[in-house]
């Protein structure tokens, strides 16, 4: 075996001495793709960066060895590490939009590496860049490099990032969630090109992700990580088909269920709660929504799915009254709903609550959990003193947090706990309708699953009505009674979830469904063949 990267007993600690990696060992063979999988905080990125001799934010390698093509990196000087970075081992970040310098042309940033490392002349570097652009199917390779990062689409930028990483013809690529920020239909494209490019040039790769279905398409072997330590490792087939460790089994089972469970939910639904007819809205003169007709019945979950830019979040803002529509009518519980929240009486505000995607920024960092949940109780229900405290404790119980949590500040909560507090805050108002805007997108799969379970339980117990906005079809599958597919500000298809998943009527819906990565290794090939054919 020709190992290109050999890591032994790697330990990394933060500037304050907290150990993040507790002795990780791995081998990467030439041309092999090794998947690192785990939830946030598992240390995946830390391993990837340490393999480049780099520690983020003052982190340092405190033990072990990293042997890259015969060079020991863990104890190497800064100059030696700089000579290797970018040249022998290169990095592809999750968000290419943030990883490209906004003030420089793509070309400038891509040829910079080869020129600085002195591995190519300017002409050679440019020629190689054009070859990569062609291999990555970027439009008009000659002109593409002249663009600035903001002038190209997200999928193109992610591919340009791969070209930048490949610029020095490195031995190893560290791919850190390279498709996570992309829409499903774009993800397929990038994933296929990525795999093709890596194989074509015989590059090895460390592929970091939290998504088992994505990694199943591309990795030869997997290492499952948790809290900075290896849980288990093996070939991709082994891990997916016969996980040995309990944690891995849970990861695989959760993912499998989200993909294969019988679609659709069947709640007992009542009268029409919310009705939109002919709604159009936009920001400034830019129209975002047009001709939206939608009804939500009491007690049901209606999911709005779509890719970025489809207008689904704008729709949530319109219902919440944050963005008055330019056309159309809104009805709520058989009465017209004033377009702007400023015109809605307090009781109407109480009845429609919104939960956001990012619990980190949706909570005031200086208010304790009790204050956050207590505010709507005072405002809408006039509770005070002991009654208020009792109700806060009751709500904490409902969302599955211990009563002692009441005095904590958001900073002392995990991501999942913060989202629970956000749900409790919405629940405190005793709303009729909850708008959930990508409420699980920022959470790890197992945590997200718990949040979804909580939402389902609240629905069963209290007959809550949800307008559930998401880009993630596997979330919708088990949760929604009805699903509405949006594209470019319009409703493409709306149907019972079961019908939509089993017999979609529109080509776009079919394409979306096909784009959801499946857990079996041959999925990507099948989709590509189907498309090519």
């Amino acid at each position, binding site marked *: 075996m020709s190992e290109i990267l050999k890591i032994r007993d790697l330990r990394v600690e933060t500037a304050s001495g907290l150990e993040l990696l507790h002795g990780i060992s791995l081998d990467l063979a030439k041309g092999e793709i090794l998947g690192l999988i785990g939830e946030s905080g598992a240390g995946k990125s830390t391993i990837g960066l340490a393999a*480049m001799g780099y520690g983020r934010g003052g982190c340092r390698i405190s033990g072990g060895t990293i042997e890259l093509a015969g060079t020991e990196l863990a104890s190497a000087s800064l100059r030696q590490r*700089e000579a290797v970075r970018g040249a022998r081992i290169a990095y592809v970040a999750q968000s290419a939009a943030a990883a490209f310098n906004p003030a420089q042309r793509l070309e400038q940033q891509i040829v910079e590496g080869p020129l600085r490392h002195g591995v190519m002349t300017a002409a050679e570097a440019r020629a190689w860049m054009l070859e990569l652009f062609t291999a990555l199917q970027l439009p008009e390779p000659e002109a593409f490099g002249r663009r600035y990062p903001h002038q190209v689409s997200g999928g193109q930028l992610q591919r340009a990032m791969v070209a930048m990483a490949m610029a020095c013809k490195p031995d190893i690529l560290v791919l850190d969630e390279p498709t996570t920020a992309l829409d499903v239909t774009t993800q397929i494209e990038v994933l296929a090109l990525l795999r093709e490019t890596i194989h074509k040039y015989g590059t090895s790769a460390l592929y970091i992700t939290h998504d088992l279905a994505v990694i199943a398409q591309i990795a030869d072997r997997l290492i499952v990580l948790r809290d900075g330590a290896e849980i288990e490792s093996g070939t991709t087939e082994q891990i997916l088909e016969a996980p040995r460790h309990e944690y891995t089994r849970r990861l695989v089972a959760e993912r499998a269920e989200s993909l294969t469970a019988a679609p659709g939910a069947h709640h007992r639904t009542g009268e029409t709660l919310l009705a939109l007819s002919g709604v159009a809205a936009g920001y400034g003169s830019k129209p975002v929504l047009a001709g939206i007709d939608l009804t939500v019945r009491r007690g049901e979950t209606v999911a709005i799915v779509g890719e970025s830019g489809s207008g689904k979040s704008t729709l949530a803002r319109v219902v919440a009254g944050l963005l008055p529509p330019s056309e159309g009518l809104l009805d709520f519980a058989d009465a017209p709903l004033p377009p702007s929240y400023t015109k809605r009486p307090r009781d109407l505000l109480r009845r429609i609550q919104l939960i956001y995607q990012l619990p980190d920024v949706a909570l005031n960092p200086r208010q304790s959990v009790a204050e956050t949940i207590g505010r709507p109780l005072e405002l809408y229900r006039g509770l005070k003193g002991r009654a208020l405290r009792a109700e806060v404790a009751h709500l904490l119980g409902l969302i599955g947090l211990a009563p002692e949590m009441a005095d904590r500040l958001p900073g002392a909560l995990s991501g999942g706990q913060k989202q629970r507090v956000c749900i409790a805050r919405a629940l405190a108002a005793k709303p009729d309708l909850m708008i959930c805007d990508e409420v699980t997108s920022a959470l790890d799969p197992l945590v997200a699953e718990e949040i979804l379970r909580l939402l389902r339980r609240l629905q069963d117990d209290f007959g809550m009505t949800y307008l559930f906005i998401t880009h993630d079809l596997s979330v919708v599958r088990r949760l929604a009674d009805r699903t509405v597919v949006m594209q470019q500000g319009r409703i493409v298809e709306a149907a019972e979830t079961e019908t939509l998943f089993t017999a979609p009527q529109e080509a776009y819906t079919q394409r979306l469904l096909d784009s959801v990565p499946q857990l079996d290794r041959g999925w990507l090939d099948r989709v590509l063949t189907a498309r090519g054919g």
Partner: protein
Amino acid sequence: MTTLILKRLGLGLFTLWLVSVLVFAGTEILPGDVAGAILGQNATPESLAALRTQLGLDEPALMRYLGWLGGITHGDLGQSLANHRPVAELLWPRFWNTMALAAYAGVIAIPLAVSLGILAAARRGRFFDRFANIAALALVSLPEYFLGLLLILGLSVRTGWLPSLADTYEGMGLVDWFRATTLPMLVLVMVTMAQILRMTRTTVLGVMDQPYIETAFLKGLRNGRVVLRHATPNAAAPIVNVVSFNIAYLITGVVLVEAVFNYNGLGRFMVDAVSKRDLPMVQGAAIVFGAAYVLLNMIADIAAIALNPRLRHPRAKGA
């Protein structure tokens, strides 16, 4: 982008007009009156009234404002009440004196402060960074007249290297002019450098936390190149802003420095005019100061718009 710049220009003109209103209103409510100041002890009610009529002070304020504003638009700032010469004739030489000193200080302070700020950012936490920070803080906390007196004591009284008074006159030789103005220049350099240096450092360091800086490091680039090529261009707009703010200060805030070194600039001109209640002179100086401020801020804003790659290179239609 052109629309944005035109909008900013329009806003600048509007601000200038507001400045003219404020200047005029401000001098209207200034205590005392020029007739009283001119006549002094000899004032009788009759002679005061006669002089007021002669000076046109009896007309309604609005008429006087419009007349004054009309004059300004073609360079006429009115006549000095004290010695009846056109304000413009008296004011411009003093203005150019101030500009010369400001230019002398600016040409040295700005490049030095910006490069030291970038250097401090590149060596974050190291000796140079700490030293530059402490020195800048120390300088910025000393009042400029105190700094001026310290320099006079050190470089003039004790050693006799430089003259303690910045006496300049027309037809003065260039070498003599530099000798005379070096001390006030040094004071101005010290005062402005501190702020520019610290702001440059902070802005560059702010950019250093961006993900694309990490990308640059992961390409194997060295620290110096990352700071210069990747961080600094993205910090340019705020730096231009603080620089222009300091140039404005060099022009309009030098009253104290001019007083310490007895320099014939616009600041002292204005102080003298105020003490003589010579309203057209005060108004003239104030409107020039105001215009300098508005103009420099406008240039900084336009530069910030022009430096933004998103505005400079808009997305192609349909891309």
